[in-house]
Structures are given as C-alpha cells and as structure tokens.
C-alpha cells in the first residue's frame, strides 16, 4: 500500500478560532496520509479536534474557525485553498460524508430515492432513469432489502440502522475517492453497529475508497480501521497500525486510554484512570500538552513540544513506552 500515492495527504494543518481574546489554536500541526482502500481511524476524547479535522477536509469549517496554515491534498491537488463553489463540486463527487445522526443528515420531506438521484445527477452525466437504476443498485449494495420499493419511501419509514445504510449509499453515490465518516455508529445499538462497520469495511475493500473514520470508541476503531491516529488537544500523539497501537501503545496517553476501557475477561477491582481532564483551548500547557496528567513527565516535557517522527508506529513523546514491554 505504501507504493501507491495517498488519496488524502494532510501536512501541518493549523486551525484557529479568532475571538475577543485573540486566536485559539484548535488543531496544531496535524499531518497524516490515507492510502486508497485504507481505513484510518482517528480517535480521541471530546474536544481533541478529531471532528474538526474531518470538517476541514470537507471544507465545511464555520467562521470564526479557519485554516491558518498547512496543506490538504486530495489526489495530489490542494483543496484547502479552493473557493466555496469549487469545493461544492468536490464535496459529494470526490469526498463523501457520513455523520453521526442519520435522521438529521437526510431531508425528511423527500423520498430517499429523490435524494440519492439528486446527488448522482449533480455529479455524474446520467439521465433520470439511469440515475434511478444506479440508486437502486447502491441501495442493494448497502444491504437494504427490497430496494426497488424502498427507494420511494421517506426517511422516517426506515429504522436507525437502515437510515445509516441510506446515508452510506448517499455518500457512495458518485464513487468518491474518500469518505469522512464522523461517528457513524455512535447512535446505533451494538448489534446494528457491527452490521454497519462490517458494511463499511466491505465497501472500502470493493470500491477502493479511502475512509477517515472519526470516533471516540476505541472498540470500533480496533474492529474496523487499518491504522489509527490518536489525537489529544488538537495534536496527533500517536499513529500506527491498529493492532500495534491497541496492544503496545507507545504514548502514555494512549496507554492510559486503553487501560481505562473496562476489560471483558475479568472483573478488576478498579480501572486505571487518567486523572484530570483535557486542557481547554485557551490553556494548553507549554511543551507536551499531556504533561500535567502524565506520570513520565519531566522538565523537558514541560518546556519543549515533542514532534511526531516519520515511521509506521510513532508517538509524539519525549519518553515513549518501549515497543515491547
């Protein structure tokens, strides 16, 4: 996979919010690549900046938030400098989006067929009949039974899991290169969640679509993603193949996060907890953002910001945990 050119390539992304008290840095120097057919999981707690990164890629950043630095390349072309009108052509055509709540991502008054056909016809040179045939094929592909009749139903006639399948069909409508999936399974029950992640994995493999999977659920990442990027306070603290990051985390934050998930094997007396909370944007500590909560922190961590090296499994940490403890 490393030989092929990445679909999405983000370098040193900097997103700031300008307010009354000056500019706050929400995303601070984030860089990553996603290869064709690869699922990159972006995990972090609330406020880590994972959704914001996804929003910046699809060009839906609301003011006062703005991209203050860095580049976003889609298939080698810069998309962070495009105008709203140019971005609108790319959105849906080259980048699809799946959001958390399937009910609010669909228009309640239009049939799902109308919505999918509209998307197809906006981006592909097909007439209505061809677009409808394609819409039915898409609905079948995402596992909606009796797609020929279901296409004329309204969103409220579908269950939560089925609605999320419709949203996935909509995201796939114009064969995009990249899908941003922001918490796609969070609103669903566990048994439905497993169906949706299995579907995403299959589609990613069959269509060669790259997926950026944003979620707070480490379990979903472990089941679905190929690689994972862990975010903390607007920075990526660790990147690597999912089995290595979950089994042998190198950054103390990732290790703490993994240890605080209750295990299924036995009932422990107490869970390991990370004391404190993620810093607010106006009070990000100097040096490593995690240093006030870290057991391994020393003077160096409090003074200088660690950088993320290049490599398969790397952590932005001055004192990373050993790869094989």
């Amino acid at each position, binding site marked *: 996979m490393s030989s092929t050119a990445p679909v999405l390539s983000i370098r040193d992304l900097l997103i700031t919010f300008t307010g009354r008290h000056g500019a706050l840095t929400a995303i601070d120097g984030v860089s990553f690549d996603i290869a064709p057919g690869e699922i990159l999981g972006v995990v972090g*707690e*609330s406020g880590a900046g994972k959704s914001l990164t996804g929003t910046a890629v699809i060009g839906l950043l609301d003011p006062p938030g703005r991209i203050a630095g860095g580049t976003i390349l889609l298939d080698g072309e810069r998309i962070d400098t495009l105008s709203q009108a140019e971005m609108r052509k790319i959105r849906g055509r080259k980048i699809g989006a799946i959001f958390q709540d399937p009910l609010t991502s669909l228009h309640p008054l239009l049939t799902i067929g109308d919505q999918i056909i509209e998307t197809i016809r906006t981006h592909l040179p097909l007439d209505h009949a061809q677009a409808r045939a394609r819409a039915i094929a898409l609905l079948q592909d995402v596992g909606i039974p009796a797609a020929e009749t279901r296409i004329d139903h309204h969103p409220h006639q579908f*269950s*939560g*899991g*089925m609605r999320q399948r419709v949203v996935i069909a909509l995201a796939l409508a114009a064969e995009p290169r990249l899908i941003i999936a922001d918490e796609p399974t969070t609103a669903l*029950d*566990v*048994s*439905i*969640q*497993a*169906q949706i*992640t*299995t579907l995403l994995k299959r589609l990613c493999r069959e269509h060669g679509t790259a997926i950026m999977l944003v979620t*707070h*659920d*480490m*379990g*979903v990442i*472990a*089941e*679905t993603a*190929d690689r994972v990027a862990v975010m903390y306070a607007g920075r990526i603290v660790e990147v690597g193949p*999912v*089995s290595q990051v*979950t*089994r042998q985390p190198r950054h103390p934050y990732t290790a*703490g*996060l*993994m240890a*605080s*998930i*209750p*295990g*299924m*094997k036995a*009932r*422990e*007396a*107490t*869970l*390991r*907890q*990370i*004391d404190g*909370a993620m810093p607010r944007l106006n009070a990000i500590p100097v040096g490593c953002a995690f240093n006030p909560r870290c057991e391994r922190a020393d003077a160096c961590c409090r003074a200088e910001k660690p950088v993320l090296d290049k490599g398969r499994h790397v952590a932005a940490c001055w004192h990373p945990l050993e790869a094989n403890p």
Partner: protein
Amino acid sequence: MNSVIALTVDRASCHFDVSAPWLTRVLQRQPRRILKAVQEVSFTVRRGATFSIVGESGCGKSTLARMIVGLQPPTEGRLDFAPLALADGSKAAPRVQMIFQDPYASLNPRWRVGDIIAEPIRELKLIADEAGVAARVSELLFTVGLSPADSLRYPHAFSGGQRQRISIARALATQADILVCDEPTSALDVSVQAQILNLMRRLQDEFGLTYIFISHNLSVVRHMSDDLAIMYLGRIVETGSADQIFADPRHPYTRLLLDTIPSVETPNRARQPMSGEVPSPITPPPGCAFHPRCTLALDRCRVERPELRGRGRLVACHVSQPD
C-alpha cells in the same frame, strides 16, 4: 457476599396505550394498539450488590428503571422494597434515587450546585438548620471528589464528568441506599468514564449502596455487575450471576450480544454480525420474540413462548438448556 434482598420484582408489566384517537379508530375501524414495554419481569436484587439490566434500544430497560424509581406505575405485578432495619430496631423504607444518562440535562442550569444538592435534604427535612445543610453539602461534594467551594458555582462551569459527580452527590443527599443508574457513563469519554465507575465502586464499598445499573455497554456492565438480566423486547431472556453469564452465555441472544461487542483486545477479527433488527414491540413476533434473528430457531420457537427456566441462572429458550 450477603444475600439480603433489597428489591423483589414480581411479574411486573408495563403497557402503554398507543392507539389512535377514539374518533379515528372508530372511523377507520382500527383496534386499540398496546405497546407492551415490559412484560412479566421478575427478579430480585441483593443488598449492596450491583444488578445490571442489559439490552438494545426498545427492549424496555429504561421503562423498567422508571418503574423501580416510581416514575411509572406498573400495569400489572408488583415491586417490593425490603425495609431497612434501623439501629433502634424500627424499620425505615429504603430511599431510591436515580442517576440519569445526560448530566447536561439533569441539572438545573439556573441553580447553584449547592442548592441542587441541598434540595432533597430540605425537601425531605433531613436536616433542620441551614448551617447543617451547608455542612452536609460540603461533605457530599468532598465525597464525590469535588471541592466544597464548588457549591457556589453553576452547572455550566463543570465538565461532563464533574456534572455526573454532582448528580451522584444529589442522589446520595437523600441517604438513598438504592441508586438506579440509567446509562450513567454513556455520555462521557472513556478516561472520564473510568473515573466515574471507580467513584461508584468506592461509594458502594463505603456506604453499602445497591446499584441497579442500566446499560447497553457490555464491557462497563462486566466491570460493574454482580448479577445481570438480559432483556429482549420487554422480557428477560437470561438472568444470573454476571460471572456465569459472561463465562458461559446460554441464550442465543446473549451469545450474539457478547460476540458483537467491539473488542480492543482482538483488533480486526472477522466476525459474523447479528442480522436483522429488534422488531416493533407493538407487534412482537409470536412464540419466542427472538426467533426471526435466531440461527438455532426450531418450529416450536415460532409458536410457543419459552418460559424462564433453571436454578440460579435462568434462561428463556427452547433450544439452549439451563443448568
């Protein structure tokens, strides 16, 4: 583990009338439609233990929680709370309190934290003088890991985890001994979830609290529970000790549920997700409600509803045998 019973639920049901208005029903010749949210549920909760109720959306677990705290009267059956024995030999009714899922919606944004926690104390006249109330509020805040000075602040100044601590302090203010926790950590991040779960375990040890824990997150349930009931479409399909059920699930639904939890211990494992969805509780399938999704279903399952059978651990299944 002691086996003093804190709560006995005996064949409790809760039905909701979801029929169309009378005139529409007469004109369109529609029958009444009854949603059977909880049907003939029986279990006992041991004092000082954690009893968890697990299931997917619409299985009736939250309705059951509301029935236990008295927000929803049971249509049939009864819930009996064993009275607490006081030091002087007299009996006092146990106090039941609830901890809600969303700490952003369950605290009044216009009240100071001190008043939120003091309200049950004042309402139930547990402490007569204001100085005593203030001292008790400070003590409660300290117990849940906040600072007594926080009583002057408003809920918006706190993070999700801190707000859930305030909810816990409010529940403890009544000297409640049974806490019904409806998804207490699902709105929280994992590292904060660990803090709250650890706090709840510590409080249980300190005050001998009984928890009735409602959740769909099985790894949290595994961590917290002593006993467990799995619900599907308003009925309990399997119940028993948590260790037993997690080690050796008997009902096919329990097995599938355990199999579908994403696990961080075995990344990228291939798995067969459970097909289908939970049917509507207004028109449940005949026989065993789980049969349309069950891989083991026999003809008998389609017509005859299985009863909960067994000793200790109970299973409602024709195919899978209890102990």
